[in-house]
């Protein structure tokens, strides 16, 4: 049976929708706050993405601020991360320190990863997922 993990932020509409999709479509998932994401998990996820850790980060400060209206400290990093000033390692360190920079939802079984809510990707990813184990002896 596959184990799926959802990293989300409550009150983020895209996270809430993804969570509702999983629940209402009968896909069990372990739900964590995006703030609980660790350096080790950031590594696994970033390795799965074409442009690495950058792909996990809000593309601009406007979108970051819509979802995190009160977070000021993190804002300056958004530009830095996308400007190419930082190494991949440095970006990963920053994300471990400031997980709010990471787009939510993130849905993963640590083999594939979906960043953000995208209905079509959800539907194709969960096409053959086993949700209940009834094969035990």
């Amino acid at each position, binding site marked *: 049976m596959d184990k799926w993990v959802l990293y989300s932020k409550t009150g983020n509409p895209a996270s809430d929708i993804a969570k509702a999709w999983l629940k209402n*479509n009968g896909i069990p998932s372990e739900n964590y706050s995006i703030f609980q994401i660790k350096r080790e998990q950031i590594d696994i996820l970033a390795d799965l993405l074409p442009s690495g850790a950058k792909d996990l980060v809000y593309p601009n400060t406007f979108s970051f601020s819509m979802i995190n209206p009160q977070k000021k400290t993190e804002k300056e990093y958004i530009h830095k991360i996308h400007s190419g000033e930082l190494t991949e390692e440095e970006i990963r360190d920053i994300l471990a320190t400031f997980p709010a920079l990471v787009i939510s939802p993130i849905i993963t079984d640590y083999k594939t990863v979906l960043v953000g809510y995208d*209905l079509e990707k959800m539907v194709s990813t969960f096409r053959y997922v086993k949700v209940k184990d009834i094969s035990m002896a």
Partner: protein
Amino acid sequence: MSRFDAFREAGNPMFNDNQLKLGIFGPNVSNSCSMTLANTSFKPDFETNVKIAKMMEDAGYECIVPVARWRGFGGASNFNGNCMETYTWAAAMAAVTKKIYLFCTSHVPTMHPIVASKMLSTIDEISKGRIGLNTVTGWFPKEMDMFSGKKMEHDKGYEYATEWMEVVLKMWSEQFFDYKGDFFEIKDGWQEPKPSQSPRPVLISAGTSKKGREFSARLTDFNFGYIESMEHAKEWTNHMKKLAWDEFRREINTFTTGFVVCRPTEKEAKEFYDYYVREQGDWEVANIICDMFGIESSSNSIDFLTKARENFIGGWGGWAFVGTPEQVADEMIKISKTGISGTLVSFLDYVEEMPYFNENVLPLLEQAGVRKPVKQEESPEEAERISTELYSPVQV
């Protein structure tokens, strides 16, 4: 005596004196009729359904029509994904209700007519004559694909449904019969018990196409449908009555459906509509369903497309009863004047919203003469319960 007279004489609620009959639609499926992620206490479970049915019986509603769904439509709400199957649902509801008329909704391709007719006779026995049948041919392809068959081509679907219904009617009325059609061959058909209600369970269907209306006119008692305006309601009703009489020499009624957002002020009602339809609506499901109904974005204005989607989200495309009790009652009275027999209603949150509607809209419908006040009869058990509760000494 006509068939409708026989129903009336038997005291069937679907044929009572109320000019505007009321029922609800889809309390057995998740989200009922609203395609939304808005907060609601509603759950498609038995406990909630019993609670709703009791409220309805106290207020004098006529019927409950469940939705038959074998999978959800997708989207974040996976609209209608969680669904209590309607025959088993009706059997259990029959055992715990007293007055309200219940329906099973049956996809004809998913079940053999002999199984269906016998299950209905059984529920008829449990309910003491309060079960009817809503036949659907199955229009949601992903759902019908699960039953190994492809969704039948539209007209063929109705030919199949016609034979299916003919077999059911024979099972209910004949003994030792043979039937040979293109789809079914029954040898020496036999069934006991027969339905106890007179003349038989009420039959309804919701076809709007030419074939769908023909099927309704030929075999059922009520054609269910959406209305676009009061004029459209009138035309549709007249058309159905004429079609049934001219082609099949029989009577038929029409029945529609709508959703209710009723609040003390118009502002509150509209604000709530904004919240659950425009802000929290499951727009992807609305798109999926609009696509299935062929509501194309290329050939329609933005305004039309938005309204169509909003109506689906609000309550399955039904009539919008949004406003104060006076405004809601006024719309309902108008509908009853078109000749339609009644309307199903849906609420986002039945348990929370229905009491306000019952207390504030129903009296206005009674004043207008389109419904009769409910006789508050006290059953012997109820009197016993009240007296025990009131007069039993407090246990310390």
